[in-house]
């Protein structure tokens, strides 16, 4: 037990060292969401309001929780998929041969991914406030942190599950283009769900990120399309399922 706690800390610490050692990575990781937020916020922000957005809510306010969701989606999936890098560069063997439970390894990685993901999300939140989003209340901010943790953990689990089944990096762009981007666009991060035609809207309701973004909107700007209780419940179930799935596949991965 003590050894497992050490292992979780050790793996988390390594993620931190790696993350902060590469300044370009810290920078690069928030650059894309920032550009989305800045350019779309400015582009759509002025002029007529978008149908589906409650009156009185500016587009930047509407968009910021969506972009926070996007930041978490990308950083968390990458954190899960980083097992692939470790496989590629051999370090996975050093981790797997250690006498610690596999669940501790998964928890250490999850802790690392959560920390870096939420850090980036908070940076984006601050950017959003600078760009014109209304300052959230403290309670709202704390609730948003809960949603951030659930979103990040869900997609870390997803990334981990994929990474455990993949032998090398060749499938990486497939995952990017056919999983991550559709999840992002089908989450209502950029525009209200009701603008989707029926089929797409049903797909969006099967996307855990939809509930995450909606929950973030509720906590940060006080509007939501779905009940926040439903958001929380659906997301919690998805999170548990994905983490279990990720841990299960990781447990059974072989290191050649």
């Amino acid at each position, binding site marked *: 037990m003590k050894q497992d706690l*050490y292992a979780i800390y050790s793996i988390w610490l390594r993620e931190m060292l*790696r993350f902060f050692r590469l300044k370009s990575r810290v920078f690069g990781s928030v650059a894309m969401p920032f550009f989305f937020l800045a350019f779309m916020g400015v582009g759509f922000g002025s002029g007529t309001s978008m149908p589906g957005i409650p009156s009185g809510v500016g587009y930047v306010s509407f968009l910021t929780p969506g972009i926070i969701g996007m930041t978490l989606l990308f950083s968390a999936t990458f954190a899960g998929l980083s097992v692939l890098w470790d496989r590629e560069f051999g370090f996975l063997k050093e981790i797997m041969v250690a006498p610690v439970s596999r669940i501790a390894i998964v928890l250490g990685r999850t802790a690392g991914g959560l920390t870096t993901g939420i850090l980036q999300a908070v940076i984006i939140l601050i950017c959003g406030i600078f760009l014109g989003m209304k300052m959230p209340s403290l309670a709202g901010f704390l609730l948003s942190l809960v949603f951030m943790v659930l979103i990040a953990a869900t997609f870390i689990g997803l990334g981990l599950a994929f990474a455990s089944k993949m032998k090398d990096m060749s499938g990486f762009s497939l995952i990017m283009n056919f999983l991550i981007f559709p999840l992002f666009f089908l989450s209502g991060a950029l525009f209200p769900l009701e603008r989707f035609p029926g089929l797409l809207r049903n797909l969006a309701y099967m996307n855990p990120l939809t509930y995450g973004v909606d929950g973030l909107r509720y906590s940060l700007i006080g509007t939501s399309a779905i009940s926040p209780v439903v958001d929380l419940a659906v997301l919690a179930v998805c999170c548990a399922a994905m983490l279990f799935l990720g841990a299960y596949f990781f447990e059974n991965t072989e290191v050649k």
Partner: protein
Amino acid sequence: MNNITSEIGRMDGPQLGQAKNEAAISMQGLTKRFGDMTAVDHVDLEINKGELFGLLGANGAGKSTIIKMLTTMLTPTEGEARVWGHNVTQERNAVRSSIGVVFQDPAVDGMLTGRENLDFHGRMYGMDGPLRQKRIDEVLELVDLVEKADIKMEDYSGGMQRRLEIARGLMHYPHVLFLDEPTLGLDAQTRRYLWQYIHNMNKTNGVTIVLTTHYMEEADALCDRVAIIDNGKIVALDTPENLKDMIGSDFVILEIQSGAEALIQYLQPFSWIKSASIINGTVELKVDHAQQRIPEIMQVANECSAVITSVGLHKPTLEDVFLKYTGRKIREAGGTANSLVAMMHRRKR
């Protein structure tokens, strides 16, 4: 090669032939298949505590796969194996606690310093702060990397990286240390240093060591016992001496100006002469323990007035043993392309 043998001092195998409580490692019918390909084929083997054991074979012979099963990285398709008394499929964590592993390909985090890599390792093995610091300093000293400890490992040379990995494998006092091709792609000088380390770890600290290699001289210089692996099977298993003895006797090759026939006639009666023949004007004698017989041969030559202009001695090497058991030379068997790729792989990191 003979130099290093005497330099290191051939193992006198305190464990060899002695009764011991339990083997460090035992395998029964150990098998691994990848699809249709059988990488390891029903291997039975026992490795004793305190032994420095070598798995010798060409690339792709199945050595690394055996190591990976023993270190819980791969699950055997069939058969079973125990490491330090623990079953490799049912008691994985107990196995993992007993062993240190240096893998064939680098397994370090290049973005961390050497010290940070060791620190990570120590925590993963449950070592607390003071013990960890003490061991880090000790093993860095052991592999002579104290000054390089705080630079990022991506800036290490291949040899330095290897040494750090060996240090790391030893850090948590493993009972058994696995070294998968420890000197692959390293220059001659670094290899000799590593041989020294490996030898000392085994003889001084009593760590049981299992290494794989496709370098004959490495197996010969270091190992107490050697198993030759070919196509996933053990084809020969013994001490390097005994393996070489099985090949047969030494050859003494004599360049002779005159009196060759007479010399052979004089020599034939001696019991230690296994055979004698003249090939292209040189005399080839098959002799046991040839070094000790050369003076006698000289004496006989004097008596029969044969004029010898030069003396050559050929002792069987493990290369000859490998050739005998596999029908191929190890370099041919391995396909140099593979080792080259592995080398470049290592350098890239």
